[in-house]
C-alpha cells in the first residue's frame, strides 16, 4: 500500500510518504513469523525554495542543496533542483523459519524512512 504519488510530476514539498510492505503480498507469510509487514515509506516532493530550507524540527538543510535551489531560482536551466531523498532511516528485524526449519532473527539497518531531506 502506498500513498498515491501526486500527479505525474512530484508535486508538493519534499516529505515522507506512506509505503507499507506486506509480506503476504510477496507470498512470504508462510515462513515469515513476524512482522506481517513493515512501514518502509518513501520520499517525494519538490525541493524548491523554501522547502529546501526545511522548517524547525526537520532535517537541517545541506548548504549545497540550498545553493542549488538558489541557482535554480535565479537560472532555472542550470543544474536542476536538489533531490528529495531519505535523510534519516530506521532498522527492522524479521523473525522467520529458514530452509532448515531453524527459527532465525535477522536485523536489517536502514529499512524505514523516518525523515526526508533535500540533497
Amino acid at each position, binding site marked *: 500500500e502506498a500513498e498515491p504519488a501526486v500527479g505525474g510530476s512530484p508535486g508538493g514539498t519534499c516529505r515522507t510518504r506512506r509505503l507499507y510492505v506486506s509480506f503476504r503480498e510477496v507470498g*512470504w507469510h508462510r515462513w515469515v513469523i513476524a512482522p506481517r509487514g513493515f512501514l518502509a515509506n518513501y520520499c517525494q516532493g519538490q525541493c524548491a525554495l523554501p522547502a529546501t530550507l526545511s522548517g524547525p524540527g526537520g532535517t537541517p538543510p545541506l548548504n549545497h542543496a540550498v545553493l542549488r535551489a538558489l541557482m535554480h531560482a535565479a537560472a532555472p536551466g542550470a543544474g536542476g533542483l536538489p533531490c528529495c531523498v531519505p535523510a534519516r532511516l530506521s532498522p527492522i*528485524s524479521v*523473525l522467520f523459519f529458514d530452509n532448515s526449519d531453524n527459527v*532465525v532473527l*535477522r536485523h536489517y539497518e536502514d529499512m524505514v524512512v523516518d525523515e526526508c531531506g533535500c540533497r
Partner: protein
Amino acid sequence: ARAPAPPGPAAALLQALWLPNVHRGAPTPRPVPPVMWRLFRHRDPQEARVGPRRTPQGTTLRPCHVEELGVAGNIVRHIPDRGAPTRPPEPARAAGQCPEWTVVFDLSAVEPAERPSRARLELRFAAAEVPAGWELSITQAAEGEGAGPVLLRQAVPTLGTPVRAELLGAAWPRNASAPRSLRLALALRPRVPAACAHLAEASLLLVTLDPRLCHPLARLRR
C-alpha cells in the same frame, strides 16, 4: 549466451535481504521459542511502536549488536537438535553408568562470511532432584568414531531450569567460521548415587555478525 532472466520483484527483494532466494514453501510448524520472541520484541521498534532506535525500556539500540545477549551480531538462530528426535527410554542405572546422548546441530545455513559471537547450548532435563547436583560433560563426537576430546565440564546444581553451556571457544575456535555441522556427546552424572536424568530437549542459540548487513555508517554511529 542468453543473459539470465532478471529476478522478479520478490526474488530481488529476497536477494537484497540476503535471504535464500528459494524458500520451499510452508516450513514444518513448530512453536517459536520464547527467547526468540523476546529478542524480536526487544529489537523491533515498529513492533514496540516506540519509534526508531529505542527499546520499549527507552534504552538506545546499538546497530549490529544484540543487547539482550550482550554481543555483536545481526543474526540470531535457534537451531534444534537433529539427533534422534525420539530417544528410547534409558534404563535407570547406577551412578556413573548413566547414558550418553548424541546431539547434532545442522549449521549449514550459516554462511562463511558470518562471524559467530555466541553459541549457547541449552539443555532441558527431566529427573528427580539430587541435592548434591550433577556434572555435565560435553565431548566432540564424530560419526562412527569413539569419544573425542572433552570440550568442557560443568557443575549443574539443579535441573529445575534449562542447563546452558557456552560452546564458542570450546566446540570451535572463537575466531573461526561456524562448522557446517556440530555433533556432541553429552553425559550428565549425579554427584552421588541416584537415578539418571532424561534429556528432554537440546537446542543451540547461535549469534553471528554478518558484516555485509552491517553498514559502515551504522558502525560509525556505534
